[in-house]
């Protein structure tokens, strides 16, 4: 299981830079990030190489955050590579709450982060298509 850190963001210039530099100062590597926003605030979601350390650093800076387990699925880094995964979700009538991708593409693969309504059902349906979610170890994170 891969853990995502979600941070409450005020709609204020420079806030994102403050967070990323706090992580950088502590040698934490950002692997993925996305922002969901309203007019007044947002939620920064990210995958880092050391979730526990990142959490400690951010809490020290008094950020409001929460940890959530997410699924990471690797897909071939070719046009249409993600299609079988999305078809699986449609087949199982599973809602996608949100998705985004990791910065790195390695070994001809892209990595997609999924937060879905029914994670277990998603995993078992993926298995029937011969797909297994990527583990934290495989991504070299913990």
């Amino acid at each position, binding site marked *: 299981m891969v853990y995502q850190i979600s941070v409450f963001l005020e709609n204020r210039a420079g806030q994102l830079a403050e967070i990323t530099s706090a992580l950088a100062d502590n040698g934490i590597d950002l692997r993925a990030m996305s922002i969901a926003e309203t007019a007044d605030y947002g939620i920064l979601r990210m995958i880092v190489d050391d979730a526990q350390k990142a959490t400690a650093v951010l809490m020290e800076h008094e950020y409001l955050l*929460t940890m959530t387990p997410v699924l990471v699925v690797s897909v071939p880094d070719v046009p249409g590579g993600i299609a079988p995964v999305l078809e699986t979700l449609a087949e199982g009538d599973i809602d996608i709450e949100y998705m985004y991708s990791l910065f790195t593409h390695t070994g001809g693969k892209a990595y997609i982060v999924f937060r879905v309504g029914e994670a277990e059902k998603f995993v078992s349906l993926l298995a029937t298509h011969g797909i297994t979610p990527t583990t934290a170890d495989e991504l070299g994170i913990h």
Partner: protein
Amino acid sequence: MGKYYQPEIETASREQILALQNERLVKQVQHVWENVPYYRKKMEEKGLTPADVQSVDDLYKLPFLSKDDLREAYPYGLLGKPLSECVRIQSTSGTTGKRVVAFYTQHDIDLWEDCCARAIVAAGGTREDVVHVAYGYGLFTGGPGLNGGSHKVGCLTLPLSSGNTDRQLQFMTDLGSTILCCTPSYAAYLAETIHERGLRDQIKLKAGIFGAEAWSENMRREIEASLGIKAYDIYGLTETSGPGVAYECEAQTGMHINEDHFIAEIIDPETGEVLPEGSKGELVFTAITKQAFPLLRYRTKDICILTREKCPCGRTHVKMSKPMGRSDDMLIVKGVNVFPSQIEQVLLEQGYPANYQIVVDRVNHSDTLEVMVEMAPENFSDSLAKVTAMEKKLVDALKSMLGIYAKVRLVAPKTIARSEGKAVRIIDKRKI
């Protein structure tokens, strides 16, 4: 009908008014003593009996009533008549969620409507007029009060209630409204809309009676110029019946308090001591004719000045200045009473910290209310849908508590300044 609605009393000599007040006060104290145990107990605690109040000069001896008493005695504790004799309630928001519920007998409604009728006639109203009431109807006293006053004068009354500007303007143009009654900010908004739509030539307004919120002389001149009317102020509070407790005449230099029904005092809000005439202080009312909700020495928390200078209109009743502020933290937003404690209660119920800031502003002549709330860990989630759903729940709870919409702005924890001692909870940007 001439210049006055009830000329004998409106232009009575000082001696006549005082004699009437003395007689009515003594009777009212006796009525309260016999029928309102809550107040009787307060008198007994001060070692008073009705015999201690022989005239207005003795008024200072009596204990005060405040919104706290209304809360404690809610709902029936200050009732002066059996419910079987009451015919109506009106209500307003109170502190910490408890509403103020005021009761009326038919007699009380009559005297309240008389007060409003005086205000309408003072604004030039006659039975030939079409009175357009755009105050809210319902629990709020604005609509029912002016509606009743307008009936008494014999005007054609248009009970539009508040909102729905298209409909307001349609009736105003089609039926030729001549006197507009609403909040000053809504009047300014209507004026602007009338100009935008090029309807200025189609309206027949000659006067407006605007109250329930603070407005400046500048705003008055703007509305008057824009609509080609004369704009009159009116004052009142649910606790003392509603609008019409005091109203402006053509002199527009303060509002005549209906002294045959209410005795006004100005006190030092800190010490409670009665201040000499002309002093600035907290306005206190004693209702001397109301039966069902006979409040004695009720502290309005409004700061103002009373003056007995001769008024060119010929009315002899004392005049109060526009309220210059509050001696508590109550805000009036869109004519609605808002207490920070109400907002605090909702925040705590919804799981948010009670560290918040209220920002009030006036945009396009209309009040806006924004509450800055610190995001709470238990309401935070990775899901934007969940966070916005929690936010909507908070907005709905605030609307239900306050009766008006408040915009919620979620901010990061510990970002609202915590000050030493009294926190700065309210930022009022309105330039009134």
